[in-house]
């Protein structure tokens, strides 16, 4: 039993923390996050040079990390800086590409030379891949895709998109170069896109990639949960500092018990969130490990909203302003629940996967 980061992970965490601390701040982030292409190319290059993108893929598949713990270490730091770079979409695309022998493309992405996103979700679909409606049919030796994909994270400005679509044998994966995307900024910053496919020609990577997709999405969920923990800690620091400084009625806000107790409730939820990420990371790849991922996403969804709403309330008016960094952390923490299945979707998944034996 040891809950400390290994030396390597501590180094990765410190390096990324220092890089973001030196090169990134909230103004720069907000400037980039809400105008196309919704991120900063020089930051992306910098992250690639540091090896952060490579940390998302295992060595045997061309990266230099790739474990659930590597991924959680990276995303916790990204969350602490509220980094808007398209790391989530890249993680998802990298995982399915590396699962299907796309070594060259994986290498290009890791080096920062090109960028990819994964198109899975659809307007009528959340967690459950079986609800997917987009189809892929082979006609005269060419695969043609039909349907609408949405919530393609990090797609704006990407060089290609990996698309999941139903085939006769399951959920297939298809490679689409120079996709025509409908791009938008997200409410909490960063780019997202929809993709409308009408007999769109694509290269087939796999006819049934459900296992790979589920694993990639679960790692994406772990990433989001770790990002949330980083963002929560940063937001809590801001909130506690503010309560200690702000004076009303001749005394600091931190001397009011009603406010103290709310801040304590937040702190306990952060510890709980940190614990559930440790649990999901530790169980990833084990039998039943997907339940721990869903527990994490469920708890983080609930705690994220608490952190968001309470931090705004404890700040008062200033917490409602665009200028105040806390407001952007607060938005991110609520919007994380909307990505890769929310607390309800993951409660449903927990119910569907049945009762795991707690006592062995």
């Amino acid at each position, binding site marked *: *039993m*040891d*809950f*400390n*980061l*290994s030396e390597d*992970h501590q180094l990765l965490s410190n390096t990324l923390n220092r890089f973001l601390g030196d090169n990134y701040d909230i103004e720069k982030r907000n400037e980039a996050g809400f105008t196309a292409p919704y991120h900063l190319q020089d930051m992306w290059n910098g992250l690639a040079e540091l090896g952060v993108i490579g940390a998302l893929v295992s060595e045997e598949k061309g990266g230099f990390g790739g474990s659930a*713990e590597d991924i959680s270490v990276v995303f916790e730091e990204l969350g602490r800086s509220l980094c808007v770079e398209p790391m989530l979409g890249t993680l998802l695309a990298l995982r399915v590409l590396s699962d299907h022998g796309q070594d060259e493309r994986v290498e290009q992405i890791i080096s920062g030379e090109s960028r990819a996103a994964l198109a899975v979700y659809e307007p009528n679909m959340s967690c459950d891949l079986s609800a997917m409606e987009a189809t892929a049919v082979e006609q005269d030796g060419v695969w043609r895709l039909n349907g609408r994909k949405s919530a393609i994270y990090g797609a704006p400005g990407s060089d290609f998109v990996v698309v999941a679509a139903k085939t006769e044998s399951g959920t297939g994966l298809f490679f689409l170069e120079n996709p025509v995307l409908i791009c938008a900024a997200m409410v909490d910053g960063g780019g997202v896109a929809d993709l409308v496919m009408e007999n769109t020609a694509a290269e087939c990577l796999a006819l049934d990639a459900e296992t790979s997709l589920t694993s990639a999405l679960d790692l994406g969920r772990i990433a989001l949960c770790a990002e949330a923990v980083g963002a929560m800690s940063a937001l809590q620091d801001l909130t*506690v500092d503010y*309560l*200690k400084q702000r004076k009303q009625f001749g005394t600091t806000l*931190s001397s009011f*018990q009603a406010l*103290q*107790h709310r*801040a*304590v*409730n937040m*702190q*306990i939820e952060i*510890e*709980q*969130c*940190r*614990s*559930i990420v*440790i*649990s999901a*990371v*530790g169980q990833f790849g084990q039998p039943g490990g997907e339940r*721990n991922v*869903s*527990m*994490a996403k*469920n*708890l983080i969804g*609930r705690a994220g909203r608490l952190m968001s709403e309470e931090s705004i309330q404890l700040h008062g008016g200033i917490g409602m302003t665009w200028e105040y960094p806390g407001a952007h952390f607060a938005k991110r923490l609520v919007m994380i629940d909307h990505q890769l299945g929310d*607390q*309800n979707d993951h*409660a*449903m998944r*927990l*119910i569907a996967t049945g*009762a795991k034996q*707690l*006592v062995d």
Partner: protein
Amino acid sequence: MDLEFNETELAFRDEVRAFMRSELPEDISRKVISGNELTRDDYMRWQAILNAKGWLATTWEEEYGGPGWDAVQRHIFSEESALHGAPRMPPFGLAMMGPVLIKFGTEEQKSTLLPRILDGSDWWCQGFSEPGAGSDLASMKMRAERDGDEYVLNGQKTWTTLGQYANKIFCLVRTASEGKPQASISFLLVDLDTPGVEMRPIRLIDGGYEVNEVFFTDVRVPVENLVGNENEGWTIAKYLLTHERTNIAGVGFSIMDLERYKTLAQEIKRDGMQLSDHPIYAARAAAIEADLEALRITNLRILAETRDGSAGGVGSSMLKLKGTQVRQELQDLYRSAIGPRAATLSSGLSHNEMSVPYDAGQAAQVYFLHRKLSIFGGSNEIQRNIVAKEMFRD
């Protein structure tokens, strides 16, 4: 990062499991799991079994008859005890009086009193709270006037848990009238059969008897019964309360309660659905399961910090807060799940013998009794004050 116990710890866990399976009397574990009150005899039987094994006084040093366990072993033992339905041994003698005597007692107090705790000759109860002193313990008023070789006690203690089974009580008494409230408190041991002591049961919200009030009228106690120095009782009280914190998160209890709920949910139907498939119930259970898994890890994280000597002071407060919330939430879920039958008051409710199985009626009673969790051992508001003090320290 490594979430697992090491090989030695796992071997220890297996040893504890094997012991629980072979030695824990089934009639006792059935009572514990079904939420029935235990008799004095139930406790004493289990105490004797543990004592024979040398596993009774888990926090004591080996030279006094403890097993010499570290924090991880104690954690494993208490979790396995809960998971197998072993009684939670009342902490007053084993986890409070014992450690206090070991640290503050005279050689004579140690040599006479410690063995009597182990062999069950003495059942201690706690005389701290008073009607006017709950969370604000330092405002307690019970007087102890010195008269020759004796103290003369007058006053009242309350919330004395399982006092009906006890023969001795340790008390905080006021031995001076001036100075800071904390600096005029002494720690005194009293035989409950001393003339002038009267114990009266307090019937609780569930109809059961678990706590008592104790009245002291001109009770004469020899000065040798003082532990530590006169007017230094507050230090001892604070030391003792840190020993109340073992297994404070109650993860084992919650795991058992969740398992019990899941079994029930597969047995009964509601709104035409199996309860385990009922969207509202299943969603609540899923959220609790997530909270509980997080709590299990939080508990291990704080345990690892304790083992490595880097634990902050607020960990146990956080565990108490979240642990009691989860336990109370589970009781509420179970009560709801039982439905209309939860309104039935179980019959034969008496404080010595309850043979009825854990049935529909008791779900509501146990739920109400469990409201105590967020009040005792330092109310959850006090725990938030403790965490806040650390958070907002300059």
